[in-house]
């Protein structure tokens, strides 16, 4: 009798556990696969944009002493809020500093858009339920060494200790690179702050990370002259906003806001003159971009039905064009002229083999 009761109880427990597991398993899959999302409507209903940002990255996403979140990535959150909600302050900044949970936050709908120095890769695009919009910042993986170290390229790093941030694309890149050039190397891993510390206190000879990251870390130091960044770049790191898969309405808005801000720089629309340009557009293209009629004509909506035609105009009015965003948040800490983030149309004055690749697609 007792044995029977025990057996019944055990069976009941197993049944309950199985039920719970199944119930949870239903929702657990890749959040993107649940059919078409409609994030734009969700944002409008909520009245607030949930922007997943980094809060610990110098220049790109960090916090001021009064608690406000600021940086290069943050400006794009404001632009999107201005575009969709007509108010660039209606943003809730959700912390996505932790690299390992950032895509889950997106899939669990804790955030609407992920703007935190995230590299576009094919595997992320396919496997993580994320869809990437236009690149906001181009960088690549570089190497920093002490000026007196005698290291001029990766082929000199045979005996060097190389510090690299673990758990990122950088780690894999450096491993691939040294396999390719057939050199043994001595990697030391850690968090990005820790490896930088190790490098500057002399515990490793080489620091490898995104070249922009290296530049910003060296620029802030009093002894910046003792370090140099090698010209060699071993990877492509295009950093772009990410949205959930299967939501092209929202992805298109994000995408064209970024393109619109770049286009604004190309044709000289700034935060200061955007209102005047909208009141009296000099040509049809400006009128179309700003969503205003040209000489009494029609307003071109271009099929964006979830946002009104002035969405790019509002984004520019809120944060300025791409160049203004760059100058305000990154400025001279990472020089822009003739680097990847410069406009293609500015390349004529650049030395051979250098120049920008920022290029807006036609808004028409």
């Amino acid at each position, binding site marked *: 009798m007792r044995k029977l009761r025990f057996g019944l*109880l055990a069976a009941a427990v197993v049944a309950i556990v199985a039920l719970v597991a199944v119930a949870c398993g239903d929702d657990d899959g890749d959040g993107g696969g649940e059919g078409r999302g409609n994030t734009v409507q969700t944002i409008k209903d909520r009245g607030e944009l949930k922007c997943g940002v980094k809060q610990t990255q110098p220049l790109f996403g960090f916090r001021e002493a009064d608690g406000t979140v600021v940086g290069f990535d943050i400006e794009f959150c404001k632009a999107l809020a201005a575009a969709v909600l007509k108010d660039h302050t209606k943003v809730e900044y959700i912390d996505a500093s932790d690299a390992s949970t950032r895509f889950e936050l997106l899939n669990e709908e804790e955030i609407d858009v992920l703007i935190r120095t995230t590299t576009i890769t094919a595997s992320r695009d396919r496997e993580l339920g994320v869809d990437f919009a236009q690149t906001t910042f181009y960088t690549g993986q570089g190497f920093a060494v002490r000026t007196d170290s005698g290291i001029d390229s990766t082929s000199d790093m045979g005996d060097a200790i190389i510090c690299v941030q673990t758990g990122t694309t950088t780690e894999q890149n450096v491993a691939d690179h040294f396999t390719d050039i057939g050199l043994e190397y001595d990697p030391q891993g850690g968090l990005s702050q820790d490896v930088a510390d190790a490098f500057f206190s002399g515990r490793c000879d080489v620091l490898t990370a995104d070249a922009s990251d290296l530049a910003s870390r060296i620029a802030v130091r009093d002894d910046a002259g003792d370090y140099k960044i090698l010209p060699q770049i071993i990877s492509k790191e295009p950093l772009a906003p990410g949205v959930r898969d299967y939501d092209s309405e929202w992805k298109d808005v994000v995408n064209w806001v970024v393109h619109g801000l770049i286009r604004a720089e190309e044709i000289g629309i700034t935060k200061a003159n955007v209102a005047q340009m909208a009141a009296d557009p000099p040509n049809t293209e400006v009128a179309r971009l700003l969503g205003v009629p040209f000489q009494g004509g029609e307003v071109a909506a271009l099929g964006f039905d979830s946002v009104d035609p002035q969405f790019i105009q509002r984004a520019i009015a809120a944060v300025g064009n791409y160049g203004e965003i760059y100058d305000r948040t990154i400025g001279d800490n990472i020089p822009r002229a003739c680097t990847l983030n410069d406009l293609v149309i500015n390349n004529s004055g650049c030395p051979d083999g250098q120049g920008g690749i920022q290029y807006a697609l036609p808004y028409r």
Partner: protein
Amino acid sequence: MVDMPAQNPQRIVLPPHRERARRPRIVRFREWARRNLFNSRAGTALTIITAAILALIVYGVVYFVFVDANWRVITENRWLLFAGGYPMDQEWRLWFSVMFVFLLIGLTYGTWASLGRRDHLFIVLASGFAILLLAHGGAAIWSTIWYLIAVGLLYAGYAIMIRMPRDASRGRTLQQRSVAGLLVAALPIVLIVLLAFGGARPRELEGFVLNLVLAPVGIAGGLIIAIPLALGRASRMRAISWTCTTYIEVVRGAPLLGWLFVALFILDDVIGGELIVRAMVVLAVFTAAYMAEYIRGALQALPHGQSEAAHAVGLNQFQSMQLIVMPQALRISIPPMVGQAISIWKDTTLVTVILPLRELKGNADSAIAQFEFTPDRIEAYVFVAVVFWVVAFIMSRISQRVEGSLGIGER
């Protein structure tokens, strides 16, 4: 007739240890040092080496704190570290809560214990530390004044309560009940002050404020769940005891880190709501599993005669639990409970690791991301460690006092 030796009749001969005690302090110290530090060649060598190491450490710490460190990373970021995204125009809510809690500490100490010399010293030191932090930036004077008022309230509450007679009387009962009632209501009151009637949204609780909210919720919620859990585990009804045992074993068997993932991914679909509320639920559920075991241990430590005697005088099961067994069991389990409370206090930092919530350590990471302060991460982390230690020390101190006044370990 024998001649008495010429002796001072006033001289009283003392036993040897009292005799030694009469000599000047410096002589006694020298003697103590010779006996304990320089008693042999090896002993002398050991003393010198230890002293050298100690001196090096002290020098290192002093040099770091007063010369090397750039404490501006803390003082400039005071608001970021303590309140973060809390709306600045609602700052009075934070100060009101601080004053309320300080007053409550004063009342509690005055009712059940007394402040010793060491407590006063600690209050002065901690206040100095706090004022050093507050005396920078725009609203420095007001912050300092608010803080001093809070300390004043602590002493005022203490002064009133310590003057009340302690012997059993109706007044004493009333005093104890009202302070206990305030203690129980304190957490809801603080949460209402911080959040309700135009206050912050739950997500805007950040920085040190978030730690200070999460830990008490975890501890209080844990205790509320733990008591029925402990009784259930000890129950003779199989189904109940099995359920409780399963709960305890499952929850205790996985790290808090893992349960926070549950808050993020699974509780979302089960209870939904603000992430911070889900984090609170997880902390309470996790703490409860440990606390239930401490209470069960205490229940088993109670002699069986206690509940038998309760039944003998005609108390029913519930009354005997409420009046005889539980008060004693909870008293026995105070030391491990406080250990668990301190542990959960430190574990609140984990919410930043897993969840997109920013507590003190997370906001310290943000502070050192400011371009100007990127080289000052050691300072930021040392500061965070000290703040955590101060609060943990206060908890430990209060528990010692409570134990003392309840007579634990003296029976």
